[in-house]
């Protein structure tokens, strides 16, 4: 098969890029443990009040610097609407939806995931800067979607 010299160059470039992307993906997944925000957790979205985890949404301390925030998203807000943690703490968010698809987005951080009814979606973030962090829904969920928000208050040590 005859291949033009230029064709060979751009094929090598294209295949090389693909290999590079797959390497970055593989290293971040297997060496650094990055994974999609769904941890395959399931929950009965119709009976969250009876659920052992989601019947009591809020923040629980796991160890000195780690907290678990259990949050329910619903049209058009989050429960609880304010979460308070000290500066430097790592927060594991586990979020589910009572009704439709929402999202849990903290602008200017890597926390940005869909919240789907029936599933438990998770993300972890370390808050090194004290201040007030806004949480937004970025999946259109209804007429008051633009008002859907909550706050994370990171208090100085």
């Amino acid at each position, binding site marked *: 098969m005859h291949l*033009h*010299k*230029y064709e060979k*160059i751009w094929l090598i*470039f294209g295949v090389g890029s693909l290999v590079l992307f797959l390497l970055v993906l593989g290293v971040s997944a297997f060496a650094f443990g990055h994974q999609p925000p769904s941890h395959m957790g399931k929950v009965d979205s119709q009976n969250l009040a009876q659920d052992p985890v989601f019947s009591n949404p809020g923040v629980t301390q796991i160890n000195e610097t780690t907290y678990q925030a259990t949050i329910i998203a619903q049209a058009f807000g989050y429960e609880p609407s304010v979460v308070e943690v000290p500066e430097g703490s790592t927060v594991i968010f586990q979020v589910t939806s009572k009704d439709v698809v929402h999202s849990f987005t903290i602008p*200017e951080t*890597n926390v940005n995931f869909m919240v789907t009814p029936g599933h438990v979606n998770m993300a972890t973030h370390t808050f090194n800067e004290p201040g007030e962090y806004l949480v937004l829904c970025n999946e259109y969920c209804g007429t008051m979607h633009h008002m859907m928000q909550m706050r994370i208050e990171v208090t100085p040590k």
Partner: protein
Amino acid sequence: MSKSILSKKQSNLSTQEENSSLKGTFIFVMSIGSFILITWFIVFFIFVGRI
């Protein structure tokens, strides 16, 4: 003898035409490829910086 010279000339000519006709394509393919790579790495380093 003369026939082989003629065919050699013709093949040289056709190779030259191929080269010149793919130059623009080559520049475009490489610039789009570089654009995709550069923007991918910009986004990747924003992600890594926020961990």
